[in-house]
């Protein structure tokens, strides 16, 4: 009988040995080395800021406790709360109308109401001032009719709140629309068949399940408001970011600015922490219904007309008027002989900075993404988390920290392209890591392993097998970084080499001096370039849906 039960004897037992240390392979050294370098680079601004703030001395800290700081905190909080609340109401209404009601033209409205995403806040601010400002378009029309030379001020809180609400509600809208679409209509139908009215079902079944999405979307809006520099500066409303910029421009008290910046970072971190906690919970909710029928649409009946009027008003305010104003100033500028030639140089600068940033940041994201997806370990995840520091740092804070650092320790780098690129790296690495990671996650590790067992070393396996596969993902990530860089304002403003004007800084300086016609062409170019990724995302969504 040829049976051999295998008791665990027969071979000498190999004794336990301590974990051996072997020289790590070249590939492993390369990946870990570059990932650590990237992590160190992105940690430079926050750590240096902390250092300066701690070393600021009691004077700076007591300055922080003065009434003025309280006013800044009050202003910032007031603005954040107002914008968030207004956006939440807008977004909830629009999300319901475009997913659950029989509103005529739902698809069109859902695209139009998402579009304000492509308008950077400083362009939005510029267009508000250029239309309703004391010497804006409205005044230009009224002057010949009524002889009004100045309109009442729109600067300050109302202007800032209006601009930021109109620009940031789409963040909450997109989150809520997704949540509405994930809800299982069978639950609502079950509640209806249990004898509840439509209103009760909405309040007791639908709304509670939307709560995580509503909270997450609202926090996104709050974060946007907190970090915003362009709109509040143009609207001359003293929140943290504007005050930081003024301090940078006017005072030599850099430690005080550092302390103030640190307070802003802490506020941002707090909101981010809440947001992450809620997002984790939201995910649990979203897993339940995958295959489901589309919900039955609620007939609006007579309410159709007010609903249409509401959507039209929002689109009018957030899209049509800005576009109209932009065209008005563009045409007016062209008619009055505004030359477009300097624009070429400025656009070339923007493209140069964007291209360099895209290449650098994607290259930096690759080792981090490889570590997390292919060699997950606590250290790898730690490094990944460090690269997300850009989410917590407003652009103005990163820029200020690098200004301080550069002027003190690296004067030869100060106001050169490399230091600007470092700021871009800190700010935009998160989206690049996200893009590269999702590209890598789509490739089964078996592919590289197959290459290895067919005799290729890790670097060859990467080059011959992995790279050709993830190239489209890398390209998409690079495009995203490029376009985000194109419209970035505060870091570019503070760190660009002298005389290096980009589209964003051109809009800024033209608006600062109320040359509205000069700002129109670069603003239009920025909006066009920002529209590209949205168009890409929409097209891709349609492709996957088909």
């Amino acid at each position, binding site marked *: *009988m*040829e*049976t*051999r*039960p*295998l008791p*665990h004897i*027969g*071979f000498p*037992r*190999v*004794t*336990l*040995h301590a974990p*051996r240390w*072997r020289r790590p*392979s070249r590939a492993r050294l390369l990946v870990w080395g570059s990932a650590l370098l990237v992590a160190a680079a992105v940690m430079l601004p926050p750590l240096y800021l902390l250092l300066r703030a701690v070393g600021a001395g009691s004077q700076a800290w007591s300055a922080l406790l003065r009434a003025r700081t309280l006013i800044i905190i009050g202003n910032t909080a007031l603005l954040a709360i107002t914008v968030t609340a207004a956006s939440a109401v807008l977004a909830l209404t629009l999300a319901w109308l475009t997913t659950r009601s029989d509103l005529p033209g739902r698809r069109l409205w859902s695209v139009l109401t998402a579009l304000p995403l492509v308008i950077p806040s400083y362009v939005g601010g510029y267009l508000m001032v250029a239309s309703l400002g004391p010497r804006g378009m409205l005044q230009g029309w009224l002057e010949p009719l009524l002889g009004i030379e100045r309109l009442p001020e729109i600067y300050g809180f109302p202007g800032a709140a209006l601009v930021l609400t109109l620009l940031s509600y789409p963040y909450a809208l997109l989150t809520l629309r997704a949540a509405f679409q994930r809800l299982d209509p069978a639950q609502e139908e079950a509640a209806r068949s249990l004898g509840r009215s439509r209103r009760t079902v909405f309040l007791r079944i639908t709304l509670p399940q939307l709560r995580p999405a509503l909270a997450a979307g609202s926090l996104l809006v709050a974060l946007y408001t907190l970090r915003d520099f362009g709109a509040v500066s143009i609207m001359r409303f003293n929140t943290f970011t504007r005050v930081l910029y003024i301090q940078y421009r006017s005072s030599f008290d850099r430690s005080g600015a550092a302390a103030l910046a640190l307070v802003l970072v802490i506020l941002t971190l707090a909101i981010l922490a809440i947001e992450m906690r809620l997002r984790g919970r939201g995910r649990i909710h979203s897993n339940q219904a995958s295959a489901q029928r589309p919900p039955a649409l609620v007939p609006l009946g007579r309410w159709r007309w007010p609903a249409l009027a509401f959507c039209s008003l929002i689109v009018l305010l957030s899209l049509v008027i800005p576009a109209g104003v932009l065209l008005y100033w563009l045409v007016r500028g062209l008619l009055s002989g505004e030359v477009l030639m300097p624009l070429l140089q400025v656009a070339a600068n923007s493209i140069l900075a964007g291209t360099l940033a895209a290449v650098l940041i994607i290259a930096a994201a690759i080792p981090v993404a490889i570590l997390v997806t292919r060699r997950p370990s606590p250290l790898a995840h730690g490094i990944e988390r460090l690269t997300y520091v850009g989410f917590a740092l407003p652009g103005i804070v990163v820029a200020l920290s690098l200004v301080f650092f550069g002027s003190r320790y690296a004067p030869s780098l100060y106001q050169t392209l490399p230091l600007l690129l470092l700021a871009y790296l800190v700010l935009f690495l998160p989206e690049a890591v996200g893009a590269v990671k999702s590209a890598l996650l789509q490739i*089964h590790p*078996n*592919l590289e*392993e*197959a*290459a*290895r*067992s*067919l*005799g*290729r*070393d*890790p670097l060859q396996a990467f080059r*011959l*097998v992995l790279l*050709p*596969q993830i190239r489209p993902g890398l390209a998409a990530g690079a495009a995203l970084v490029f376009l985000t860089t194109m419209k970035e304002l505060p870091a570019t403003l503070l760190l660009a080499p002298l005389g290096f004007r980009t589209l964003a800084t051109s809009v800024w300086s033209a608006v600062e001096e109320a040359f509205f016609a000069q700002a129109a062409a670069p603003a239009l170019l920025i909006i066009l370039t920002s529209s590209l990724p949205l168009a890409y995302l929409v097209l891709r969504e349609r492709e996957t849906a088909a």
Partner: protein
Amino acid sequence: MSQPAVICRALTKSFNATAAVHAVDLSVPEGQILAILGPSGSGKTTLLRLIAGFEEPDHGEIRINDQPVASAAVFVPPERRRVGMVFQSHALFPHLTVADNVAFGIRDEHDRHQRVAHFLELVGLEKLAARYPHELSGGESQRVALARALAAEPVVVLLDEPFSNLDAELRVRMREEVRLILKETGTTALFVTHDQEEALFMGDRMAVLRAGRLEQEGTPEAVYSNPASRSLAEFLGHAEFIAGVVTDAGLETELGRLAQRVDLPPGSVVEVGFRADDVALAADEAGEAEVLARIFRGGTTLYRVKLPSGKIVHSMQAHTLTLEPGSRVRLWLEPHHPLPCYAEGKALRIHEMAPRRH
């Protein structure tokens, strides 16, 4: 027997303190196929990945062609082990044609074309050389994966559930084809699967891996008819057990006397393992057993029968016999080989008593 191509000694690998592979000893002789049968989570894939070099063992040793490739002192990276891997997902490179996939592991430039052609012909795909993986059917991509692994002239080919992505009919055809190719080329192979039938078919030898431990190794026939433990017999399927009392004349059971002996004193009780096809059945008005259910299986019919003691057993019969539930029957064991016996769950050494009686 020639030198083993692969040897594992006391191989152990844990993930987060759970042993995926525990003290595994095995060897694959050159030119043979060892099929490893294990349920999901038994550590089959980890075992293969350790041999291929994608995981490092915690302890133990792996030798390929008598060279240590993983031990306390050495770790040879996968690309220098000459181990061909056929993945469950096939892992064809989607950006390369069939021919380029097969050529990928051939390092020698000058006869690359000929060898690609040779191996494509071997798997019958010479016409599809210019296709891309997404243009292949499941069976075709299976063949490309095999050709790619063989073309690199590996010392051993590891196959990780290679047929599980195929539909049932194709699976049977592919395993015959793959076995034929491996045998034709004299390839040493280690094949893991959770499908018992597949393991019985593919292996020159077969081993059972459960919870990271190698429980039994032998020819497929030996493993199937004489599981080394009661729980292994249950795992291998359709196993039933009945008490047998040791007497001088053999083992007395409720299903008659068995002409076999175990090394235990008379009066000891053992568990006898049998399958439904070892049980004979005859309609008998005076019989004390009662048919509970008739389960029609196509070619055969399975009867569920209650014995006088209340124990329920199964008997496999030709589909020509039809008995309704409630019929009285007579049952007895009529095996064509000695039945395995277990005491305290462990297999006992058994001796046949000639002449065998019915």
